[in-house]
């Protein structure tokens, strides 16, 4: 670890032009199955970032996920989001020379607070703080969704097939289900419903595609950073709104639609204030159904990693047993939505 700390600190010194650098703290951060994240606190003398500086170093973990972005792609997406005014860690330096640390990595600023859903959902935020946070989430998404194709440097992101993100997702998820090779009639039924009820597509925008409680940092009730940009793609804005509101991301606070924090109405009001777009809640509900299907498929893929022997793990095995909960949610949510039409 200490030699890795020296490697990264020397890299920062070169990038900033610092005369000297001292490592104050270096530790591996939790929560990266696809990446290794390290906290790096340095004392820099001279250069363009003098003084005590806190960074996060993000590099590939030994086993990646094929569907996620590479580190250089993620760095460029983060740059685009940061430039659009999203409260994200500032991406500072990308190192594509694997000889430096053994893997490709990038360094960004470190945000304060915690991303723990438990702390946030079961914590002691007041009703007003929750409302403020939900409105802030709407603001962040509205800013991100101002990024629209084409964007120089983001040409590695695929456009939705036939210009229809919903139908494009249905086709992708049918492929996943086929590959999993286990019969899931409820998921087939839900995919048929999603195909038949696909709404008119909204504008194609930059979507985070994993924007949910657990992937943003909060400090004293204030959002400090949106994290985990590896699934970003061009899609319908409502895909992000639906994923954030999906029942599976409420962490037990089912009555608070927005990530177990607050109400969808507040989310959509702040989204409209910043974007000028009046989102139809029914379209968000449609994308919530899509989110339940996606969640179930990810859980099945994780269980497969255990069952195939690729990564034997009780946690992954139990994740496979959670799929029935999402199927039950689908059976409840689809009729509710259909009756509301």
């Amino acid at each position: 670890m200490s030699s890795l700390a020296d490697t990264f600190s020397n890299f920062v010194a070169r990038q900033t032009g610092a005369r000297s650098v001292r490592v104050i703290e270096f530790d591996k951060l939790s929560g990266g199955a696809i990446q290794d994240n390290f906290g790096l606190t340095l004392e820099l003398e001279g250069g363009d970032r003098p003084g005590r500086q806190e960074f996060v170093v993000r590099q590939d973990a030994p086993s990646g996920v094929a569907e996620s972005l590479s580190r250089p792609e993620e760095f460029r997406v983060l740059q685009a989001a940061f430039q659009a005014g999203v409260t994200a860690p500032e991406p500072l330096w990308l190192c594509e020379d694997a000889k430096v640390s053994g893997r490709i990595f990038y360094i960004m600023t470190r945000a304060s607070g915690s991303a723990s859903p438990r702390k946030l959902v079961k914590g002691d935020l007041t009703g007003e703080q929750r409302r403020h946070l939900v409105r802030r989430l709407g603001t962040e998404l509205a800013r991100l969704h101002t990024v629209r194709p084409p964007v120089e440097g983001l040409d590695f992101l695929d456009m939705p097939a036939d210009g229809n993100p919903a139908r494009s997702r249905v086709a992708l998820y049918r492929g996943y289900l086929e590959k999993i090779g286990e019969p899931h009639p409820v998921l087939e039924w839900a995919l048929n419903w999603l195909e038949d009820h696909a709404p008119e597509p909204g504008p194609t925008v930059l979507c985070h595609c994993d924007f949910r409680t657990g992937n943003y940092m909060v400090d004293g009730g204030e959002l400090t950073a949106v994290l985990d940009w590896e699934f970003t793609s061009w899609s319908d804005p409502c895909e992000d709104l639906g994923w954030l509101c999906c029942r599976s991301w409420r962490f037990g606070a089912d009555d608070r639609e927005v990530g177990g924090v607050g109400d969808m109405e507040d989310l959509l009001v702040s989204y409209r204030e910043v974007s000028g777009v009046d989102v139809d809640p029914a379209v968000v509900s449609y994308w919530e159904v899509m989110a339940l299907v996606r969640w179930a498929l990810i859980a099945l893929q994780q269980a497969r990693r255990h069952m195939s022997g690729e990564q034997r793990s009780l946690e992954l095995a139990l994740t496979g047993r959670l799929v029935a909960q999402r199927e039950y949610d689908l059976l409840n949510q689809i009729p509710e939505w259909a009756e509301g039409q």
Partner: protein
Amino acid sequence: MTHDPDTRDLLTEARQVLLDSLAPGLAGEQKYQALMIANAMGMAIREIEQRSHGEPEATDRVLSQFLAGHQLPDDPLQGEQTLARALRERSLNGEDAELRSVLRGLTEARLRINNPGFLK
């Protein structure tokens, strides 16, 4: 051949020792792991109980009847496969109340094993 105490009894007792005697002394990651083990054992116990009451067969029978009623192969061992394929091929009406009821029955049977508390 039978073994007494039976598997269900052994698992139930082992799970109780884990929860009552071991887990309270653990913290952090180890406590999380102990609770995951208890969760997995609980599923195994409920699965054994349901088998002894013939519940999987009852669920399969409902599915077989539905498939037979829709001119589909009604082999109970292949029931879910047949249903999934028919849905993929769009040969069933997704709005059919009987279909939804069969899907609900299958899902609730799984939840009675995996997480009975989730059934509202």
